[in-house]
């Protein structure tokens, strides 16, 4: 115990003997921690934003369809409206919200232009948690209820079709009988969503008018729900499958492969960055320790002459390394915390809006620090850098006093 305290005191004071060099090493470690943890938090924030955007983009956590709908999302593949045991599962505590929709491809024609869209017949109150309508600014009014036959368009789509609130537009789609289903709707509102692609693609009306238009009374295209935890849906899916054995049930990971791929790619890049940071820090630290050992060859020989055994010399150099690492890691984490607090309102990427649209994420990224990223970054940097320090420490322990006195 006495000797450990002595080694720690010697190491601590030796570290601060060359203040400038130690501060530079400390700063490099702190910068490494800051960059590794912050990059992790930004990557997780970006992933999380992408996943949330995907989930809020009408996807939800889990969807039920008639088999074949995902390959060909047309009127031919339909489910009966929710009832019975399926309704009991959907109304249980395992599900935080759910809705059922008509969702078919359609053509929307104004007085001047026509374009392909996706027609959604919805129960508006239930859509707020499950679609972009919950966050979007609405000009005019929202579709009031499932019987409302007003039409809600995206702002960009209205611009494209050169139409506006109060004007009539025509929706054409394929009816259940295979014929053309066509009907005029009055535009009652425009929504301004975070993703322009959503504004261009989706049009909303009440579920009942949509069913009437397509001739599918009592039937829907999909049931969508949010579970309590997006990463623990397996049990809920099994329960749903028992309640609706003929439905195809998929979670958001299957429905949004791009978002999942984005998360995987980011995790890969994150570990590459961790590797770069660790190698950089380790080289800096090993260089500092070697300099310290070479400068103090005579002193280390003196310590041995006075009775210090080689493993105590090794331990002393390792403690010096640990002192630098702990100091740098503490400083790095304090800086990280300050940065995270500073950026807690989010980073506005408005000037890169087109790029973020391509990634399917919103304009504002909220850094999200995960305990696992923090602990991996810290433990890898401390552990591997300490491991790298073994080399100069081992070198110091191998010094032979008489040779060291002669050559120093």
């Amino acid at each position, binding site marked *: 115990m006495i000797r450990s305290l002595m080694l720690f005191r010697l190491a601590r*004071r030796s570290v601060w003997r060359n203040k400038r060099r130690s501060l530079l090493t400390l700063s490099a470690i702190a910068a490494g921690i800051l960059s590794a943890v912050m990059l992790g938090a930004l990557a997780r924030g970006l992933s999380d934003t992408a996943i949330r955007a995907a989930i809020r983009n009408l996807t939800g956590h889990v969807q039920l369809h008639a088999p074949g709908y995902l390959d060909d999302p047309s009127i031919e593949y339909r489910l009966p409206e929710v009832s019975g045991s399926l309704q009991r599962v959907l109304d249980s505590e395992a599900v935080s919200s759910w809705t059922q929709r008509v969702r078919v491809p359609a053509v929307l024609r104004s007085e001047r232009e026509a374009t392909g869209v996706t027609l959604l017949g919805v129960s508006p109150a239930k859509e707020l948690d499950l679609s972009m309508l919950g966050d979007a600014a609405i000009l005019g009014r929202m579709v009031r209820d499932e019987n409302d036959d007003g039409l809600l368009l995206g702002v960009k789509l209205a611009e494209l079709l050169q139409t506006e609130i109060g004007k009539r537009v025509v929706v054409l789609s394929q009816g259940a009988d295979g014929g053309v289903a066509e009907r005029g709707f009055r535009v009652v509102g425009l929504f301004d969503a975070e993703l322009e692609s959503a504004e261009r693609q989706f049009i909303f009306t009440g579920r009942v008018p949509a069913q009437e238009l397509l001739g599918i009374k009592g039937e829907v295209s999909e049931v969508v729900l949010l579970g309590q935890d997006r990463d623990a849906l397996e049990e809920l899916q099994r329960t749903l499958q028992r309640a609706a054995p003929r439905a195809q049930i998929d979670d958001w990971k299957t429905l949004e492969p791009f978002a999942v791929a984005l998360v995987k790619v980011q995790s890969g890049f994150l570990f590459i960055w961790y590797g770069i940071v660790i190698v950089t820090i380790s080289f800096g630290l090993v260089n500092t320790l070697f300099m310290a050992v070479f400068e103090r060859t005579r002193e280390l020989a*003196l310590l*041995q002459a006075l009775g210090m*055994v*080689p493993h105590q010399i090794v331990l002393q150099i390792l403690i010096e390394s640990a002192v630098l690492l702990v100091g740098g890691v503490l400083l790095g984490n304090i800086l990280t915390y300050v940065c995270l607090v500073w950026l807690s309102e989010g980073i506005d990427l408005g000037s890169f809006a087109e790029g973020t649209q391509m990634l399917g994420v919103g304009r504002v990224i909220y850094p999200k620090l995960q305990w696992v990223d923090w602990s991996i970054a810290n433990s890898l940097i401390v552990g591997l850098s300490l491991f790298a320090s073994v080399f100069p420490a081992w070198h110091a322990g191998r010094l*032979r006093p008489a040779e060291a006195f002669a050559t120093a």
Partner: protein
Amino acid sequence: MGTGHNEAAVAVERLSKVFQDGDVRVQALKEITLAIAPASFASICGPSGSGKTTLLNLIGGLDQPTTGSIRIGGRAIEGLGQRELAEMRLRHVGFIFQAYNLIPVLSALENVAFVMELQGVGLRERVERAQAMLRDVGLEGMAKRRPGELSGGQQQRVAVARAIVSEPDIVLADEPTANLDSRTAESLLELMQRMNEERQVTFIFSTHDDLVMRYARRLIRLHDGEVETDEEKGS
């Protein structure tokens, strides 16, 4: 020749040391045999390259002999591993070097207490003994000063205090006065002589300083790795 092997503080027999640097082979010591009695105040002298520092290093266990034996207090040390040699130095040998003698990040008091700390002596006891030792070498008010804040002479006094405080069998001093002016050197030698007489500690110097040789009671003169003369003063 000095005292016999039985009661010797240090006894070396047929001690040789060869340094090999590539193809170059240098025989620094050639079968030296000598014994130094306890409480001696002996000086190994000779010109540069005569082998005096090599002999001191071998006696102190800082280097291994090529052949021959070394006994410190009757115990053979040749062939011991680094760990055992370190333990032997810690318990039985005190060192005073020419320069860079102190640990720069420790105060004078901590430097004196350092060896006791390595020995596992408790805090209170080692501080008391270190303070008493500093008083004894005339540095009572300097306890908290770091080596950089002390003069060369004061630093060597701290080194003497550190070498003696742990009560070793022998103190090996390699050119202890080389960096000191004559007055400071004389004062340091008087101090070591007093410690030798009061505490019966064996001092062995390696030097070519006439002043040290004047103070030494035994002079062992080396030349080309061999003992040229070995004389006891006043015998």
